[in-house]
């Protein structure tokens, strides 16, 4: 064990003297993540202000242009309205995004003077369309209320004695804090896993494939270190750098979320402990993969090329997690990487069950053990080690 620790010490000494490793593992997450969240926060705030001040451009199609509702909508200062006669033309223009919304006001047959059929056409996937919809609802509500009031006054009702028949108010609760919460629970696990790999990749490739490339592997193999000691020393070194990268990235992300304006009130010691516990075996498994690939590759460049697909898989899993496609149950938490990602997310949301944690932890630990044994096997192979 002491020889393994000697090798670990040597590898870490080299790591802290490597500008690229220090930059990627420590400085980048501490600077980039807060900056990224600050920029995102500023952009979200600017967008919210822009949408709040939006005066939607609406194409209005109506059968009776002198109808009080049509006149009221057309003259409302909260909208820019263009009245069109051809409904088909108006809807086509709205679909081509030439207007924020199209409003079709018609009459319900045999429904009397208050029988309106109102259609609002908007692109719901577009924030501008959503803002236009909210504004149109406000305007229609106000106009309809005014018409109803006029009718009631005409029927001799004293409106000062009558409460409005109904009141509708749309309140958008989306703010920076809620958005930050979304980042915290959905993006944090993804970034943490990504930081494990980004920390392990470059450094791991250097101390495996790089050793072969520089010819230092023969020096190491001719010492009294056994293959197992070399593999364990290198594995612990990669794992250490990966965990440092994860913890530093976690700090950077939390600072970023705070800078964004969100709260991390849900993050207690217990939650952070669970997240780290779930990430540890995953970091072990990913470090072992890096070690296997690095041992097999002839050069650092070749190792990096082999590791890119792994990075892509994690990126895809992360994206599916962020958009909410992945929502595993029970045994599905045993799926490597995806299960751990989902378990960390549940832990941050405060709804991780012991069973789910057990599946995620158990599968990651088993995977890490198998991969570490494979790494040793690969490292013992002369054909791999002296592959030219």
């Amino acid at each position, binding site marked *: 064990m002491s020889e393994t620790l000697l090798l670990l010490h*040597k590898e870490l000494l080299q790591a802290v003297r490597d500008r690229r490793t220090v930059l990627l593992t420590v400085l980048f997450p501490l600077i980039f993540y807060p900056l990224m969240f600050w920029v995102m926060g500023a952009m979200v705030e600017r967008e919210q202000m822009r949408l709040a001040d939006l005066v939607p451009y609406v194409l209005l199609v109506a059968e009776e242009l002198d109808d009080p509702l049509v006149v009221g909508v057309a003259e409302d200062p909260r909208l820019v309205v263009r009245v069109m006669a051809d409904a088909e033309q108006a809807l086509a223009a709205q679909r081509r995004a030439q207007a924020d919304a199209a409003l079709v006001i018609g009459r319900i047959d045999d429904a009397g003077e208050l029988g309106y059929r109102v259609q609002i056409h908007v692109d719901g996937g577009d924030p501008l369309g959503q803002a236009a919809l909210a504004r149109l609802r406000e305007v229609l509500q106000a106009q309809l209320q005014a018409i109803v009031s006029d009718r009631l006054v005409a029927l001799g009702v004293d409106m000062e004695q009558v409460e409005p028949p109904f009141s509708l108010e749309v309140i958008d609760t989306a703010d920076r804090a809620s958005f930050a919460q979304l980042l915290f629970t959905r993006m944090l696990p993804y970034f943490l896993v990504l930081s494990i790999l980004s920390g392990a990749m470059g450094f791991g490739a250097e101390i495996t494939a790089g050793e072969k490339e*520089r010819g230092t592997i*023969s020096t190491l193999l*001719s*010492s*009294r270190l056994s293959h197992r000691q070399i593999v364990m020393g290198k594995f612990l070194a990669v794992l250490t750098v990966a965990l440092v990268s994860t913890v530093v990235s976690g700090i950077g992300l939390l600072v970023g979320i705070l800078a964004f304006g969100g709260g991390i009130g849900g993050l207690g010691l217990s939650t952070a402990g669970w997240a780290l516990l779930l990430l540890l075996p995953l970091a072990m498994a990913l470090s072992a993969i890096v070690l296997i690939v690095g041992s097999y590759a002839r050069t650092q460049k070749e190792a990096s090329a082999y590791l890119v697909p792994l990075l892509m898989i994690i990126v895809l899993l992360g994206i599916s997690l962020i958009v909410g496609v992945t929502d595993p149950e029970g045994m599905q938490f045993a799926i490597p990487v995806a299960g751990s990602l989902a378990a960390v997310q549940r832990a941050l949301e405060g709804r991780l069950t012991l069973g789910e944690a057990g599946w995620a932890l158990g599968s990651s630990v088993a995977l890490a053990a198998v991969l570490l044994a494979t790494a040793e096997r690969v490292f013992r192979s002369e054909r791999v080690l002296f592959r030219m």
Partner: protein
Amino acid sequence: MKPVVVDDLTKTFGHVRAVDGISFEVRSGEIFGLLGPNGAGKTTALRVLAGLIRPTEGRVLVFDHDVADRPAEVRAQLGFLAAETGLYERLTPMETLVFFGRIFGLSERQIAARCRELLETLGLWDLRHRRVGVLSVGERQKLSFARCMVHDPPLLILDEPTAGLDVFVAEAAVELILELSRTGKTVLLSTHDMHLAGRLCGRVGILHRGHLAAVGEPACLREELGADDLTEVFFRAIRRAGLSPEEANLVR
């Protein structure tokens, strides 16, 4: 107890027989050279001797320890210098020697004494806290020698110790090897430089395409094969052994 006994050693990589049934011995205190062109099997043979890779067939004993069965004991008895300098660029010379001294189980006191002795002898003492990456090629080569001698092994295995070095550094390396021999170390080296082998080696083995064509003292081989120098010895030996006749006919 002979430093090295190689008995019918064969090493294959897939279908390629890198070393094919070679046998020779290295005597205590001598400088033995394995001569041959690139691809002759020299590096493979030395890697087996140093315990880096296992023999496919045959037996190799280093101070009576079988390299296949007792690689740790074998490695403790030898210092191996690979064709590359094999140094870590972000460590200093002192850290390099301390690391390998600890790996070989020396006490901190022994390490301190050995580091001072080696670095002073090789003229690296003033550079001991500089990063290896900023050292010159010659300084690195000296440090490589120091690295493989830190545990004071009785046997040194040097793979192409002067390859790629300029004339000054190569000459310094030659002097160092001769000095090691004078202090009683046994040296087994590989080279494709016949002139260097003639200057350094008490005995040589001619290796070509994995086969050992001849073994002996350079003077005896010259006489035996009627050759003027080691280059001619090399060509006549491989022709006599029936190895690669078209190449052997380059010299008549």
